[in-house]
């Protein structure tokens, strides 16, 4: 463990830029903290934190100069690896046939600066989705392979966080390149740095660091524990898969559907949701065509439209599909739950549907089984 001061944190960003990375980090925009390109620590949200509850997000000034007091904003890192819209190929009519142009454009080389533990786990989950052998996604994997990850451990939790119960945080355990924990104590402001990969160690050697003392490491651990202790929300995952599988016809789905807007916000902000649709476009002459992939959602009626009809016409069927996939069939499909407890689907649902409460409601109202 090393100690990094603010001057060297700035230097770290400089080194990343010098190494050809596009550095993405937290910035304040439109009243929230989201991820965008940064040049310097001056771009970071110094002295701001986020207050989050179901259907509510507000930024609030802190009374210190902390850089990482916020938790997670509306956007996750997925938009950089799995972009909202992506052109897959172009084709041109030639005589009676056509030729496909799938010229590879050079992919950006990202350094993600400020990845939270829940988000890191979300990236690992998407890795399983997009790097699955037979159907590996070439764009995703080419971008993913070059990403340098600087994670930041949470020292605060927001009202909608539940990572502790999902075992995904608040401390990043592995597979980062560098991890940082911000400590502000008395007049001191420093970052406890942990190297997580040879690439991370190589960068660290270019910084002026000191070895962390036992006291400093403890301060960092206490700060992380503080985030865990103050987390008010949790999801009881015991037997969750079986619970969902055996309650397909539970009346709770109709209750949730009466609240649900089917607006798809939960799936768009979810760091693991990966559904997309293909759009074929032509120019007016019909001689040039392009295939685009864009984010889609199981809440959209068109998403489940197939020849002969739609197999999920009701809001009830669509919500059940989303929750059962996320928390149950995801485990069968990818060997892990699809939820990392970041709480985005709760904060950014315009009507505040709370996935943790709905699971509690389901547990507390056993299915009137009439077989």
């Amino acid at each position, binding site marked *: 463990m090393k100690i990094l001061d603010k001057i060297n944190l700035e230097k770290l960003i400089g080194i990343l830029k010098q190494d050809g990375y596009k550095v993405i980090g937290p910035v304040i925009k*439109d009243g929230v903290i989201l991820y965008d390109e940064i040049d310097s620590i001056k771009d970071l949200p110094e002295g701001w934190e986020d207050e989050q509850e179901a259907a509510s997000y507000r930024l609030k000034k802190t009374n210190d100069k902390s850089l990482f007091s916020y938790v997670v904003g509306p956007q996750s890192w997925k938009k950089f690896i799995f972009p909202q819209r992506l052109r897959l190929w172009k084709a041109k009519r030639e005589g009676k046939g056509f030729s496909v142009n799938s010229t590879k454009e050079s992919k950006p080389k990202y350094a993600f600066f400020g990845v939270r533990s829940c988000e890191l786990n979300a990236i690992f989950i998407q890795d399983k989705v997009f790097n699955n052998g037979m159907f590996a996604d070439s764009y995703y994997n080419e971008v993913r392979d070059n990403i340098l990850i600087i994670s930041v451990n949470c020292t605060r939790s927001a009202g909608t966080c539940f990572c502790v119960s999902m075992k995904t945080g608040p401390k990043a355990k592995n597979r980062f390149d560098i991890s940082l924990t911000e400590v502000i104590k008395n007049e001191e402001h420093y970052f406890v740095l942990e190297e997580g990969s040879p690439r991370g160690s190589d960068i660290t050697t270019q910084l002026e660091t000191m070895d962390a003392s036992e006291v400093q490491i403890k301060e960092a651990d206490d700060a992380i524990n503080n985030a865990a202790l103050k987390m008010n929300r949790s999801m009881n995952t015991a037997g969750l898969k079986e619970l969902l599988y055996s309650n397909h016809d539970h009346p709770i789905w109709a209750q949730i559907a009466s609240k649900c*807007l089917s607006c798809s916000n939960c799936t768009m902000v979810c760091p693991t949701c990966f559904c997309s649709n293909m759009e074929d476009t032509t120019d007016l002459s019909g001689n040039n065509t392009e295939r685009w992939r864009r984010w889609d959602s199981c809440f959209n009626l068109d998403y489940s439209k197939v020849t002969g009809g739609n197999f999920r016409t009701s809001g009830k069927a669509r919500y059940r599909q989303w929750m059962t996939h996320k928390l149950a069939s995801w485990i069968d499909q990818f060997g892990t739950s699809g939820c990392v407890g970041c709480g985005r689907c709760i904060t950014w649902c315009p009507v*505040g549907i709370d996935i943790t409460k709905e699971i509690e409601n389901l547990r507390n109202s056993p299915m009137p089984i009439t077989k």
Partner: protein
Amino acid sequence: MVNKKPKLAVFKMSSCDGCQLSLLDAEDELLDVLAGVDMAYFPEASSRMMHGPYDIGLVEGSITTPRNVEEIRQIRKECKALIAIGACATAGGIQALRNWKDTREFTKIVYASPEYISTLDRSMPISAFVHVDYELRGCPINKYQLIEVLNAFLNRRKPNIPSYSVCIDCKLKGNVCVMVAHNQMCLGPVTHSGCNALCPSYNRGCFGCYGPMDSPNTSTLASQFRQMGYGKFDIMNIFRNYNCYAEAFRKESEANEK
């Protein structure tokens, strides 16, 4: 063999002309459109007015007079494919506000000789009178969507016109939710996509120019507005504008009327 270009006609019922102007507004694409279709009837653009039948008819405006009713029935007979464009043609438009009032009373106040006015009691969409093959939403329509519909027709494919919520467009663009982050009333979660989330992109709530999405849950959204501190009058008003007579919006505005 001579490949004849399909004949396109543009008609207008009761409307402001904004939607048909979108076609002329498509400056960069207009020549390509004309390469693909024969502009057979478009009085706003050309004095060359060919007779029907037409392959594609675009019609803007709502049906508000007995003459409109006759015209639209005739137009339907003359068009192989009839496409209603804009909030007036698809939902009755802003002029459908009169549907809650007594039209005769209005004509008495507005016109010196109301006996010359021949009008229907209600402003209604085209589909209330004739079969419509495709509806393109918006007040006004999005010119790129109009080109896309013509493009799809010419290339015999399905138009890429999604029917999901405006929220998706916000998320595709990276907009921040104005409801959650700024406590603004926004009809985005129940409104049909198409404007590329224009208002939320400028930090304003959506007011539903594209009408209800494919399965809108307006009552839950309205109760959320109440929780956010808005009154029934505000809620009635946000549902009662350009698409006030689209069923889902009409019902919700009526639910908040008193």
